């Protein structure tokens, strides 16, 4: 059998398990007497071992096996797990990840794992001197066991109540038939609500498969039973296990989204053509078409949505490692993991978040002595949270550290001429501008972690590219919060259609605060530039005609679109507004000489193309 086709699936699934291992190691390290994490880690390592053995990745199998030996000893709960052991387990997890990647890619392993292997064995020996380490599994898979058992896979009816209890009934019945050796997940999991109703067990019995199946089926609420022979370490099942998910290349979903975009345009065209005709059957078709397209669009958007934990889950480990490296004590909390974002956006926010977390640990959180002297808790706190806010998702990175030294920043900014001498208060908005100046750094010295002055600048730029924005709040002595505001999806945005002369432009609503009418009473000029009084504040005014270099003046009552990022606002004057609509953002490859003020293009209902203004850039 050609196994290479399974390599990608192996890698994807193994990465999930590796993520789980890291996370549970962190939990376990925090509460060493807790029993659950070690069980979870053991299961994950065990699963990786089984999969790797099937794939023939001997290095992975060997390392996983040795980890499993140690974990098996530790999960008895009889041994105290000290820092050294935790450090070893973290190292082993890292090594496992490397060995997995190199095995799958077929590249040479660029790390030496022999040290970790030896330490794992040595630690096992020191904990249980009498126990010989179990022989490596390679031998096991070559020589089939003398006693061949059966592997029974049971799926409980998804609608059944107390699936774990139902599984217990099945196990009890199996114990009447023979010796049950292995249960996966372990019996303890069956007592929890996490159990999803699928389990496997290994039984050594003389009973016929029919008898086994009959005994299981009559236990009630059983949806499926599969019985296979156990051959060596692996299992030959008689039938394929059910799959509920398929993995789809994101490019395919993008292609579908694009087609739906075309379909929407065509649908609008149909609606316009049928509108003037007074032909009821045609109107019906047009209406039906409109409903179906909307449904299709929402299904595809849903398929693109991914919970943020897929990115967040690697951060606890990162924060742990960084804080150890920097000698800080940090308690890290993640909230709102289940919030969903478009996969394409999620893929882009990992690096910005790493920047912000590094900054928080390096610059925000004070050393323990300094915290205690300031009357704070010895350990610093960093919270990473995601929440839905109207049509956006906001991600906050908060620390309770020393806060940003505004006085020093203000002085620096004045000295370099970035701010005028007469500015005497650094508002949050100015603070962000100073922080996101390219090359800016508050760090006295460049550490290996942060302070190279690429941080906030890079973060702000990547957010702008995504059509989002960055905000900062900082209170001296209390801490700093960076907030990333993101659109939920890149593929479809709600936009205002703005008209100047005969031209139409689209303004994504992400940064639109509201629209007001331009009136003479409120317009004025500030330092020679047009400005208007908006909610008691002077905001600069831009004329869209001038922005797009359209000759001529606008006349009559012209609307103003108030754009806002954080506390920064500006007003965009247009000739007319022609309502809001959902538009499909098309890839945009502007010809040379195009004004750098557009973020994309779309096709309107009447089939004409229109450009999307980069509203974030106009503020």
């Amino acid at each position, binding site marked *: 059998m050609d196994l290479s086709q399974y390599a990608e699936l192996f890698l994807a699934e193994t990465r999930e398990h590796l993520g789980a291992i890291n996370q549970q190691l962190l939990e376990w390290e925090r509460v060493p007497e807790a029993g659950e994490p070690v069980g979870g880690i053991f299961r994950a390592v065990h699963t990786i071992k089984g999969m790797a053995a099937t794939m023939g990745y001997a290095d992975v199998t060997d390392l996983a096996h040795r980890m499993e030996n140690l974990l098996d000893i530790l999960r008895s709960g009889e041994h105290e797990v000290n820092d050294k052991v935790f450090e070893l387990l973290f190292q082993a997890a890292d090594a496992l990840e490397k060995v997995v990647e190199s095995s799958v890619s077929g590249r040479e392993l660029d790390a030496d794992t022999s040290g970790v292997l030896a330490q794992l064995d040595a630690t096992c020996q020191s904990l249980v001197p009498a126990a010989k380490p179990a022989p490596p599994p390679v031998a096991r898979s070559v020589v089939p066991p003398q006693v061949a058992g059966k592997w029974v896979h049971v799926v409980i009816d998804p609608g059944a*109540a*107390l699936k*774990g*209890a139902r599984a*217990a*009934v099945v196990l*009890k019945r199996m114990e009447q038939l023979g010796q049950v050796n292995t249960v996966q997940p372990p019996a303890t999991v*069956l*007592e*929890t*609500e996490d159990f999803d109703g699928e389990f496997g067990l290994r039984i050594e019995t003389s009973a016929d498969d029919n008898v086994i199946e009959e005994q299981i089926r*009559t*236990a*009630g609420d059983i949806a499926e039973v599969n019985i296979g022979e156990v051959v060596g370490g692996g299992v030959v099942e008689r039938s394929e296990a059910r799959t509920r998910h398929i993995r789809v290349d994101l490019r395919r979903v993008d292609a579908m989204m694009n087609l739906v975009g075309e379909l929407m345009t065509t649908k609008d065209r149909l609606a316009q053509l049928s509108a003037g005709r007074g032909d009821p059957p045609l109107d019906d078709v047009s209406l039906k078409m409109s409903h179906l397209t909307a449904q299709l669009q929402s299904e595809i958007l849903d398929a693109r949505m991914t919970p943020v934990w897929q990115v967040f889950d690697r951060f606890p480990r990162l924060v742990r490692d960084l804080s150890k490296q920097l000698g800080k004590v940090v308690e890290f909390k993640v909230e709102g993991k289940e919030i969903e974002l478009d996969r394409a956006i999620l893929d882009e926010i990992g690096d910005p978040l790493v920047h912000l977390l590094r900054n928080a640990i390096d610059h925000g959180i004070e050393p323990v002595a300094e915290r205690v002297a300031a009357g704070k808790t010895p350990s610093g706190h960093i919270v990473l949270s995601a929440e839905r806010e109207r049509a956006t998702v906001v991600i906050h990175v908060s620390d309770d550290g020393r806060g940003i030294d505004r006085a020093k920043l203000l002085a620096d900014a004045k000295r370099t001429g970035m701010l005028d001498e007469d500015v005497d208060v650094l508002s949050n908005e100015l603070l962000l501008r100073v922080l996101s100046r390219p090359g800016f750094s508050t760090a006295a010295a460049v550490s290996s972690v942060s302070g190279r002055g690429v941080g906030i600048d890079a973060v702000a730029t990547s957010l702008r590219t995504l059509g989002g924005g960055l905000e900062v709040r900082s209170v001296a002595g209390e801490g700093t919060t960076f907030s990333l505001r993101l659109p939920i999806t890149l593929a479809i945005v709600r936009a205002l259609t703005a008209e100047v002369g005969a031209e139409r432009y689209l303004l994504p609503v992400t940064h639109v605060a509201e629209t007001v009418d331009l009136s003479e009473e409120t317009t004025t000029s500030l330092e020679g530039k047009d400005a208007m009084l908006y909610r008691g504040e002077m905001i600069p005014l831009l004329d869209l005609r001038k922005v797009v270099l359209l000759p001529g003046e606008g006349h009559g009552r012209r609307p103003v679109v108030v754009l806002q990022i954080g506390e920064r606002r500006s007003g965009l004057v247009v000739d007319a507004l022609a309502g809001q609509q959902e538009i499909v953002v098309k890839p945009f490859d502007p010809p040379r000489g195009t004004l750098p003020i557009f973020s994309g293009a779309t096709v309107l209902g009447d089939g004409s193309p229109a450009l999307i203004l980069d509203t974030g850039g106009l503020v």
Partner: protein
Amino acid sequence: MSHSVLVCDDAIFMRTMISDILSQAGYEVVGEAETGLQAVEKYKELKPDLVTMDIVMPDMGGIDAVREIVAHDPDACILMCSAMGQQALVVEAIQAGAKDFVVKPFQPSRVLEAVQRVLG
């Protein structure tokens, strides 16, 4: 001859309901118990073919009652009556020797299916 049943539950409402479901299906309810202690005593006295057992009862809970009854009669047919969220307790009861379980709120058909499974 119809099968005899001992119904154990501390709530009269539940006992009545279970008794009704079973009698209407042709089973003979030979006794009722309000506590685990009573359940054990009545089991020894009545030797029923089937016991329905609530988990939470005063004076010895259902799980301990299962242990006592099974110690006395390893072939006892006991059906646990549980509420949602009592997973761990039901698992414990089954490990202690109960044969099956039904989950409240009861649907007569589910109860009868379980009874038939237990009585084999």
